[in-house]
């Protein structure tokens, strides 16, 4: 680095800068009106930008409030308690075709299966990357891998699930015909693919939480003689419970709202159609419907033409998804009280 030299004043005088200078007034009038930033003096592009910005912000508000208010209005208009609690039947007459109990159960089932599969894998991957992470190329590869999964369209995941679970080894997961052809569509298969949807969210939340734990917490645990495994199990993971829950809630929201995988991987039955003979597993091995596929099928895009039922089911679905997101806020807030840094997700 060159040694700093003595500053020199300008040798030749430069012409004055062509910038506006207003004289102002010597003393402001009694009622002081502060001349702040009046947009009149801005450049034209600035003014256009300012107006566009306000337009964008207000439009966004209007659209958001409009959508939510509309769905609430239609939902309250068409939702009746008997719809939630009665089974759907296939009837040309809409008044007799029942409600959406089975799809509702289907949504709950699929969400639980998906998140139960995703969470352990996501926690394991995040913990490995943060706490072990050697060799580094592998850690980066896994990181990119999860990003790739996050960016993959859900129908590609659905098609992948179809080809994967139609292989013979996975015959136990769904209906297998006598000739060996595996159907490939069931709650288990759809749930397994849904776990891929939720995986990146739980992974990201857990990783952020673990990275936010200051080094001295780990060092204190090692100094007491605990192994790394014990530290992870007893110290680190319990302290990121809030982060994991946040990620899981976000993942569940995404699973509950996904339709493409359901359409491809859950079969087309309106009701829960168990398959096989083992008492609980038969429901999982069978096909069914979820609220999302129910809404899709009842809209003009599907076979059914019952927009009222579609609105009602959509409203229930919206309540579930928004409820999960609200739970994220609650968890994040209560996690803050516990003292350790929690994830930013949902906290803004």
């Amino acid at each position, binding site marked *: 680095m*060159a040694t*700093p*030299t003595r*500053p020199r004043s*300008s040798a030749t005088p*430069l012409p004055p800068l062509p910038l506006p200078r207003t004289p*102002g007034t010597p*003393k*402001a009038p009694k009622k002081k009106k502060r001349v702040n930033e*009046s947009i009149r003096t801005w450049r034209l592009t600035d003014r256009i930008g300012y107006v566009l910005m306000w337009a964008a912000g207000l439009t966004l508000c209007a659209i958001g409030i409009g959508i939510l208010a509309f769905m609430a209005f239609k939902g309250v208009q068409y939702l009746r308690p008997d719809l939630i609690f009665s089974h759907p039947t296939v009837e040309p007459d809409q008044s007799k075709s029942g409600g959406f109990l089975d799809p509702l159960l289907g949504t709950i089932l699929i969400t639980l299966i998906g998140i139960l599969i995703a969470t352990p894998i996501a926690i394991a991957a995040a913990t490995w990357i943060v706490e072990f992470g050697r060799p580094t190329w592998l850690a980066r590869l896994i990181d990119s891998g999860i990003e790739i999964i996050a960016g993959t369209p859900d129908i590609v995941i659905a098609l992948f699930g179809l080809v994967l679970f139609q292989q013979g080894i996975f015959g136990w997961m769904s209906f297998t015909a006598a000739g060996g052809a595996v159907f490939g569509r069931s709650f288990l298969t759809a749930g397994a693919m849904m776990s891929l949807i939720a995986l990146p969210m739980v992974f990201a939340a857990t990783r952020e939480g673990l990275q936010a734990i200051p080094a001295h917490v780990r060092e204190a645990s090692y100094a007491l003689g605990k192994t790394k495994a014990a530290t992870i199990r007893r110290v680190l993971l319990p302290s990121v419970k809030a982060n994991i829950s946040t990620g899981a809630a976000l993942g569940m929201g995404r699973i509950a709202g996904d339709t493409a995988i359901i359409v491809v991987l859950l079969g087309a039955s309106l009701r829960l159609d168990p398959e096989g003979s083992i008492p609980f597993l038969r429901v999982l091995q069978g096909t069914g419907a979820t609220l999302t596929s129910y809404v899709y099928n009842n809209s003009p895009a599907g076979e059914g033409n019952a927009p009222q039922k579609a609105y009602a089911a959509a409203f229930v679905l919206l309540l579930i998804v928004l409820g999960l997101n609200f739970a994220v806020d609650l968890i994040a807030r209560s996690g803050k009280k516990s003292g350790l840094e929690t994830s930013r997700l949902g906290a803004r």
Partner: protein
Amino acid sequence: MIDPHESTTDRSDLHVSQNGDALPPPIRRIALDRQPTVALPPSQDSVALANGDRSLAAAARPTRGIAGPERMSISGLSVFYGDNEAVKNVSLPIRQGEVLALIGPSGCGKTTLLRTLNRLTELTASARREGLITLDGADIDSLEVTEHRRRVSMVFQQPNPFPMSVFDNVAYALREQGSKRPKKSALEPYVIDALQRAGLYDEVADNLDHPALRLSGGQQQRLCIARALAARPEVLLMDEPCSALDPKSTNVIEELITELRTDLAIVIVTHNLQQAYRVGDHVAFMYLGDLVEYGPTDQVFDNPSADRTRDYIGGAFG
């Protein structure tokens, strides 16, 4: 009795007496035949400094500035953050050709006062201002705030160059202020001039597109000074500009200030009393929002009229 010429220490670790009780640990014997380390008597210079003789500091800065026309004047300024009065009824002149040093302990309101001078306190929602500040005779409230800030520039404590090239940093003020965007070739002489005045030109002349964030701390601060000078302000405000820098850069920037004061009015807030003595021509001592004393530097430092000033300068608190 300890034998002073014995030069061993007792090494036995088992302090057990004959009947098995634990004995207190033995006294380690001090080896006395080593040469003792003797503290040297204080030199003349350090004695003089300790007694408040500022001859060394005075030798580091040969002349005081000659005050020119008054550029800004503060009358009866009070600044409130909510209910808290951070600056209480302060009146000061700010003249071209001299450096005004604001000194005082932390929290005394000097930074608030400085930031009020270029209306940066308005960024805080709870801030409120009373009193009059004029710039060249005009009430600053009657001016457009962006224009006011062009004429009263500020250099911050932490160097904050933008994540752009050196050229773009210095040219930023020039590009964004006018109504038309000037061409790069038109801006070049002004940028080079500003960099020369800031004493940075020789170090960056070979590549003006060098990323500003890759400069050293002292260079970044000089870049910020160049950036502030580019639009030819009338007043330069400096908020502890050297506190984050090494002594060499501090020295360069103090020389720079001495050079710049002929064209500008400079107000500098500093924690460092020696720096205030070296650099300042007039000194304003603030304490808890009040302006306790204002006067020429030599007078305030050698003959303060307020007791509190005397205590602060003597180091009784701060």
